[in-house]
């Protein structure tokens, strides 16, 4: 992440219909916007004067398809909010065009802004008077707390409180371990393996609870991302096209045609569903294809829902199982394509949700869409009391923290010396501290002394 990148983001709350504003800031803001904008009066955005408004259309430069009817404001540095070149695009067509426009901007070289990043730039570039100190601090702090854009006070307090609670529990375990490590001559007992396992597992459950809030938050913010994966030539692109009912991806009989990850949006019940079509996963020596396969695996990682496409007319191959293996642990649907042909796949255990479709005849597609809606709604409805709208950054941090805790847990099981478990727990805690902006070094000693009777 660099302060020199050109960044873009939807700067209005998401919702269906109405106007959405996309803000772009950075050195290349005008150029990047120019590549996707066709002014009604002709001419070039790049030669336009500062602080002017232009009417026209967002065009996909690859397909020349019109995405939306928009108003574009060009504001050149330094008299802008961020003191960089800023372009704002007022979209009218609702959520899907809004997100497609963002997608096009990213394709053209912009990067999605982090929470609070516009304001941060405004500060970095001296746009915000340093005398407004308190405000500035709050803005910077937003980077380590909840995204300014999406969080209201209540959510912020709630998430912080939950995270502080988890940190408190981790700290208590560290205290017990470190007390026993630093004072072996006192009669302080090292917590038993069982009690450590129990304590750590319960913290992991707490983090899982918070992570479930991510789906809720991200659904509102970014839509749900569904990845279409599968070995080569099982009909992934056909499925994408069938879902979009348009000829977007190239469909051929030659394995490995789709080498890039293709993103498409469809709107289901007002929630944007971002569909990621990926290269087929197979063993290959073609360099370009290897890259494509790599990206496919990364897409599985980032997707909320994985659609594993299989060729129903053939028995499952080791490559199919490899794909299934890669998707384990995600919310996944096994899509058995080519239901127009005799089913040869046999039965398999995972994914549990299995849908038979025929991209050729369209059979089963409605059921599949229904299932997708169901899964999306599951995420869209706050699951229980800890459903703070956790954003992607929080999700990453929570997952880091969880990974540390899981390592601690396996170390407990392997009877590794407690200082390593303590190290894992510290890692888990300092990750969580990135969200709340707190650190705890001296606290551990204070706690040891207030908890244990120590000394000669």
């Amino acid at each position, binding site marked *: 992440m660099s302060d020199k990148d050109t960044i873009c983001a939807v700067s209005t709350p998401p919702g269906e219909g109405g106007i959405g504003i996309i803000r772009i800031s950075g050195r290349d803001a005008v150029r990047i916007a120019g590549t996707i904008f066709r002014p009604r009066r002709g001419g070039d955005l790049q030669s336009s004067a500062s602080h002017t408004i232009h009417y026209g259309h967002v065009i996909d430069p690859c397909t020349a398809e019109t995405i939306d009817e928009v108003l574009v404001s060009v504001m050149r540095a330094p008299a802008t909010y961020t003191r960089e070149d800023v372009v704002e695009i007022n979209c009218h067509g609702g959520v899907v065009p809004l997100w497609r426009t963002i997608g096009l901007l990213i394709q053209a070289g912009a990067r999605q802004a982090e929470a609070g990043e516009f304001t941060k730039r405004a500060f970095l570039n001296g746009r915000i008077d340093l005398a407004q100190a308190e405000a500035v601090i709050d803005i910077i702090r937003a980077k380590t707390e909840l995204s300014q854009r999406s969080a209201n006070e209540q959510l912020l307090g709630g998430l912080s409180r939950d995270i502080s609670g988890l940190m408190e529990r981790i700290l208590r375990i560290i205290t017990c371990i470190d007390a026993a490590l*630093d004072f072996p001559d006192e009669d302080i007992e090292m917590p038993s393996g069982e009690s450590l396992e129990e304590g750590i597992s319960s913290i992991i459950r707490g983090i899982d609870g918070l992570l479930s809030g991510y789906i809720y938050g991200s659904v509102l913010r970014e839509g749900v991302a569904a990845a279409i994966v599968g070995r080569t030539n099982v009909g992934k692109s056909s499925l994408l096209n069938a879902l979009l009912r348009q000829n977007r991806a190239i469909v051929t009989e030659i394995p490995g045609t789709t080498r890039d990850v293709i993103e498409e949006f469809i709107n289901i019940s007002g929630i944007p569903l971002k569909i990621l079509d990926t290269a087929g996963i197979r063993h290959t020596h073609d360099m370009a294809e290897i890259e494509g396969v790599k990206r496919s695996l990364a897409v599985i990682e980032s997707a909320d829902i994985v659609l594993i496409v299989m060729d129903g007319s053939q028995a499952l191959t080791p490559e199919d199982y490899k794909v299934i293996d890669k998707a384990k642990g995600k919310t996944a649907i096994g899509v058995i394509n080519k239901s127009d042909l005799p089913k040869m796949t046999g039965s398999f255990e995972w994914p549990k949700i299995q849908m038979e479709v025929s991209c050729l005849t369209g059979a089963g597609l409605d059921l599949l869409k229904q299932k997708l809606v169901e899964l999306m709604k599951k995420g869209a409805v706050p699951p229980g009391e800890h459903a703070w709208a956790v954003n992607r950054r929080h999700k990453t941090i929570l997952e880091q923290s969880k990974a540390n805790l899981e390592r601690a847990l396996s170390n407990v099981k392997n009877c590794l010396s407690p200082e390593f478990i303590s190290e894992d727990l510290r890692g888990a805690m300092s990750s969580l501290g990135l969200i709340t902006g707190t650190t705890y070094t001296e606290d*551990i000693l204070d706690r040891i*002394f207030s908890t244990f009777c120590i000394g000669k």
Partner: protein
Amino acid sequence: MGFCLLRDCKDLMILVICVRDCLNYIYEVIVVGAGHAGVEAALVSANLGCRTLLLTISMDTIAAMPCSPSIGGIAKGQLVKEIDALGGIMAKVADQTAIQFRVLNTSKGPAVHGTRTQNDRHLYHTAVKSILERHPDLDIRQAMVERLIVEDGRVAGLIDNFDNHYHAKAVVLATGTFLHGLIHIGKRSFPAGRAWEFSSDALADDLKRLGFQMGRFKTGTPPRLKRSSIDFSSMKRQDGDDVPGFFSSATTEVMLPQRSCYITGTNENTHKVIAENIKLSPLYSGAIKGTPARYCPSLEDKVMKFQDRDSHQVVLEPEGLETEEIYASGLGNSFPPEFQWKIVRSVKGLEDAEIIRHSYAIEYDYCLPTQFFHTLETRLIKGLYMAGQINGTSGYEEAAAQGIWAGINAALKIKEMPPFVLDRYEAYMGVMVDDLITKGTDVPYRMFTSRAEYRLLLREDNAEYRLMDKAQKLGLIDKARYDRLTEELLQIRENIERMEKVYIKPYEKINKALVKFGSSPIHEAASLANLLRRPGINGKAMELIDPEWPCLDPRVTRQVEIEIKYEGYLKKQLHDIEQLKDMDRVKIPCDLDFDQVPGISNEIREKLNCIRPVSLAQASRIAGMTPAGLSVLMLFLKGRH
């Protein structure tokens, strides 16, 4: 009437001039106080070639152990080994005078092992005294320093209570608990630096006059009991390790007969006596104002604060080979003598015990350590350094570590060489000094492994390797030792590579060894390194698995074992250090006026002005520093460049 004495020493003339009935001594470095901090400071300064004078109130208490007759322990062991790695004497003398060797925490990983010795404290004192006395560049004199000579904000020397003048451009104060020392036993209190030694009041007043901010701490020492009056039969005996672990790599054998410690404990009766008479303790009557050391609380504190405990541990430690005195660890209190007898005799095995020395509490002034640079030089007076308890720490090892640190820097100042500072990721010493000057301390500071964020890297076993380059550059260790360490490092690296490369086939012998150490047999060839990484497999197991292992130096195999076994964790900490270094590279100019930095809260501004961090990394460790404040500071610094 005046006279002049010239002493020829190397290429330097030392002058002792008598002017108007007072003597004038001229040195390069003067150290005040000959406790564990002072002796290391004086010795290293002399070793670095500076004409050094060590001043002490009493020649008979040089390197005294006024409290526990032991050296080392968890985290303290690391400090002792680091002192050794820098050419200090604590490790060697502790080994020479040890009457018990024990490594604590051996059931845990290597990072939290702590070597500890019980020592004959009389022999310890004589050994150190003799080393100091024989050093050609070091003079020792018995004197009570009363004032500093300061010229233009620089220290120029000292004046004693006979108005003798000692001139030097660098002075290290290592006065321990002597500044306004006040001993409490029951209702009685009297000025003393340690039991029955003069307190140093004039110097304490002088420091205040010079503008130092002083605080007041309290510590204490338990009673000494007569060996023959104790019934050890009912107690648990604690012996040293069968294979002794030494502090110094130069030590090869145990020098003295070995002794045991004995463990007993207080009981309900003890606690009842204490609770009923708590008002007689100056700690609870309000007579003691200093903040007590929280890790070695008085027994009355333990009883009152942890009322649910029905027993507190008491360890009886021998004070030496030839003495009858037994140190009763855990029975420290400040009750009047008659109650001390009652308390002691309520303990099992001590029913007939006789107290030789009563327990006492002592209050003393210390200098707030946030007033120092990382070199332990004071910001107020150039050339003035402080080390040990005067800086708010506690413990012989903590003192000695600061002593050698301040001594090196005092000598480097004289030689006009760049200062010597170890970072938090290089040594426990670095953690301690950075903690002290960045965070200050509101209770006597003691080292713990939990203070070191890189504790997995800062181990006893690698102290020499960690510090060898810096020690050699300064000339603190000789060439032979440096060459040996270099050779060992080479072997360590070669063997780590070898272990990764060499694959072992699933021979029956190998699988037997694996199973013996609780691991599962292998079915296909595995690298030695991967076998070592398995839980349960250690250096002992490798002796059976790796044919070359038994031929290697144990110091080498130890490092190979640790580096391979804990590779993931060590790498992670090294990675964290790289991140810290990035922040460390953002330097804060020493003339920065923090009042000019807009947008930081007054509380943080005050702390910044007081502590004056030298880098963004140090600023981040200031208590109460927020990510927001740090960002503002960073942006301000960026803007200046």
